[in-house]
């Protein structure tokens, strides 16, 4: 048996001190156990901050490292899988094809938790086709798009998420309509669509935890500024501009399953200003949502699109859990697969017997 420490449970997922050392989670692992190699991103890079929250979310949710699979395309963002969950398998593939790889992985082993990391170029330019069809398949995975409005690894050209009027450092101005990947995902029926910002780690953490708790595809769009190529005056994707534009649709709290189980009605008790609302997630946890944008309903697809578009017209960027639909069939159910991971099936279950071949041969005689 592998020496996976599984004692020392940290009930709330927030960790307790283990013998005076670093706090550990339910599996007895410290947050450090979810870190990866030393980052080689630029200091201050938005991707770095997103990566930190991923580490935290995985740790707090006590995900077993061996279940995690990190998958990415190509770009600065796509390099971040090296920087978290060092104890997990990872696959840094080719540009724009992360969704395809993730689909195969999810189908081959349904017990894994695939975490796809992509950039705005990797997703919205070369990868937009696979992104769309990944959503249609509703692959059970977390898809994090770290969006800085440029192709950073190739030194800062506009990406398809660049806003009209945004400028590059050399002064060029974008005049093409941006692709709003959240709206696209909602339109196509992605069951969990969230947007956050590297500058709002609290919200981001909650949304990532929800994504882990969710069953089906979870798309998490992270505005993640590039300090080297797109954080200047004139860029609409700078820390400053995003901070100004970002408007959370709710104050959001993630209540983990173990807490929810122990205190079934704490949620309702805890109501504050406005009308807090609960959204239940597949693993028994829930979100407590406290409206900030009046009447925003993450359950209404068409209205959500309208609200996002209307806000955008006013230069406001809605963030938070933008859309959630708990009951969509996920790929593995559509594929009607056996419970056991395909990758683990023994030959006896995958190679039919001699008599089957005989039977088939008869039909050709």
């Amino acid at each position, binding site marked *: 048996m592998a020496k996976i420490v599984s004692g020392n449970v940290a009930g709330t997922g927030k960790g307790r001190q283990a013998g005076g050392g670093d706090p550990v989670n339910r599996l007895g692992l410290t947050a450090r156990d979810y870190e990866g190699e030393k980052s080689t991103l630029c200091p201050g890079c938005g991707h770095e901050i997103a990566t930190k929250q991923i580490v935290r979310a995985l740790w707090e949710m006590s995900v077993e490292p061996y279940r995690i699979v990190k998958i990415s395309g190509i770009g600065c963002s796509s390099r971040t899988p090296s920087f978290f969950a060092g104890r997990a398998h990872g696959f840094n593939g080719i540009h724009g094809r992360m969704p*395809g790889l993730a689909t*195969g992985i999810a189908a081959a082993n349904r017990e*894994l938790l695939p975490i796809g990391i992509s950039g705005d170029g990797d997703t919205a330019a070369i990868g937009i086709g696979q992104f769309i069809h990944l959503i249609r398949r509703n692959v059970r995975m977390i898809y994090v798009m770290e969006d800085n409005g440029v192709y950073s690894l190739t030194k800062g050209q506009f990406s398809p998420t660049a806003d009209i009027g945004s400028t590059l450092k050399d002064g060029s101005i974008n005049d093409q309509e941006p692709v709003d990947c959240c709206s696209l995902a909602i339109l196509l029926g992605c069951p969990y669509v969230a947007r956050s910002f590297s500058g709002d780690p609290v919200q981001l953490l909650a949304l990532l935890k929800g994504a882990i708790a969710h069953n089906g595809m979870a798309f998490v769009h992270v505005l993640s500024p590039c300090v080297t190529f797109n954080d200047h005056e004139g860029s609409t994707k700078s820390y400053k501009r995003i901070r100004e534009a970002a408007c959370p649709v709710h104050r959001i709290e993630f209540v983990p399953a173990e807490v929810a189980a122990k205190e079934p009605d704490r949620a309702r008790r805890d109501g504050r200003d406005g009308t807090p609302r609960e959204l239940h997630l597949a693993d028994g946890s829930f979100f407590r949502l406290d409206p900030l944008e009046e009447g925003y309903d993450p359950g209404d697809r068409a209205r959500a699109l309208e609200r996002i578009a209307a806000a955008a017209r006013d230069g406001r960027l809605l963030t938070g859990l933008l859309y959630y639909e708990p009951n969509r069939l996920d790929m593995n159910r559509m594929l009607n697969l056996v419970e056991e991971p*395909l*990758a683990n099936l023994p030959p006896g279950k995958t190679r039919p017997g001699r008599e089957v071949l005989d039977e088939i041969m008869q039909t050709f005689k």
Partner: protein
Amino acid sequence: MSGIGQAVEGGKTRSAEKLVNNFSIQVATVNGTGSQSSNSILMRAIFEMGIPVSGKNLFPSNIYGMPTWFTIRLSERFYFARESVKEFDLLLAMNPATAMDDLAPMKPGSCVIYDEPMGLRDRRDDLVFYPVPFAKLAAEACPDTKLRRFVVNCVSVGVVARLLGIEQAACDKAVRLQFEGRVKAIELNSAAIRAGMDYAAAHLEKRDRLYVERRDLTRGMILIDGNTACALGCIFAGCTLMAWYPITPASSICERFIEYARKYRSDARTGKLTCALIQAEDELAALAIVLGAGWAGARAMTATSGPGVSLMAEGAGLGFYTEIPAVIFDVQRAGPSTGLPTRTSQQDLLKLATLSHGDTRHPILIPSNMAECFDFSVQAFDIAERIQTPVFVMLDLDLGMNPWISGPFAYPEKPMDRGKVLTERDLEKMKTFDRYRDVDGDGIPFRTLPGTRHPLAAYMTRGTSHNEKAQYTERAAEYRAMLDRIARKFETARHLVPPPIIERPAGATAAIVAYGSSRPAVEEARDRLRERHGIETAYMLIRGYPFSDDVERFLLEFPGAYVVDQNRSGQMAALLRMHFPGASAVLRPVLHYTGIAIDARTIVEQILAQEGERT
């Protein structure tokens, strides 16, 4: 019987001897009229008579109303190639649009059955004509006007059967097999055949020399197409994920696979499948899905044709460099570009061998008959997992979509080879695990699958340069060492791919090298060269790449080797030259590139012409 079965005048048809069980039938129809069924029935009925038979379907890239030809060759010597590209002994002319063109190349004395209103018999006076009022007969046999256009072709089967001597029982069995249990269709089509037979019996006097006589040459054999054989191979290989994007002529591998998987790869109790069946949005995605699955431990495959192969180039390079098992079928059609999607060629060989940018190389298995389609499909998965690399299985439309006779397939006796995969238990015994280290000297490293519950198991796979520990590296020495090890792995692969079949008869003065679907034409050509021209040839059928040592040895033995390629540029010759410079000078290309499967005559003619030059 005025006007029917008109006697050929002027003695132009020399009363030749009987032609029994060794001739070719050309059926000219229009697509979308059920002719595919009637053609199969006719062919199958002959097969039921115990006679070796082969069929070649020439169909348009179109769904309805365009000319289609089906050629059936009967050969007691088991010659399965086309006998000729244009000339046939019997023409069944059902398509007025092409009748004149179809008629033109017919040899004097050969015979034509045609739909009466075409009035063909005035067009040539050296052929035996049998006009038949098909529409009338179909109307009588099929009261339902909507179905009528689908039975007309079966009426013609009846006429042919009667004239040639194909037994009604054979026809009936063929109909039953064709429509598997669909009672109404069986009745309707049997009736149509009977109508044709009755008409021929009553109105057509036999004046041709073609006969089908019962033999016992096909007992125990099956009639199948290569795509179905491959699909079955994948089923018995234990393939657990198939991702595809439809493309002619590869689609039916996947479609048959889906049918069989639903039937034979579902859990008896729950009905749940042991195989993921994923229709992708394109070929880029299909391969990415397969690579993801192969990496995660599934046995995964996809099937495509030329344009899809091109689109898979980048993914193939990723699979090669990250060392992921995958099986990719390429059922070749005729390019370049979209080219002739319903015609055959061997134009992708060079492409598959080197698919992707950078210095890539891929193993290829090249089946040449139905049993090999099945066997090599099974082996492809073993090799892919053993070598940890994408493996191609290369067919073409001729092998993939035409019906071929074969012995029944042998159940795979060898246990599956899942390759060097370290489990949790293995890792328990280890101190370190380096994903890309050559532990055994065969160039093949060990891998772990995601989900393996052991702290040593995890590593990062990456398409960027990496060292033995799977870490990103820009160091020259590490980069080069990785390429060298992968090259070593391909040395290992040389011994795993199917070896060539080699024949070295005494007295051979020349050698022929061939691969894939050229096999039957080449084997027939060898007989002809021996029997008609006194030239004995040695023979090598290449069945795998990278080439094994036997291949070079053979080439060096002979002063000249004719390399038969169904493409314009001589791709097999080129590939052999790349690898065996010492043998380069002796290779003489025999090229065929018309979209139509090669025949023996083409080979014989090109060899004789070059032999002439030689002497």
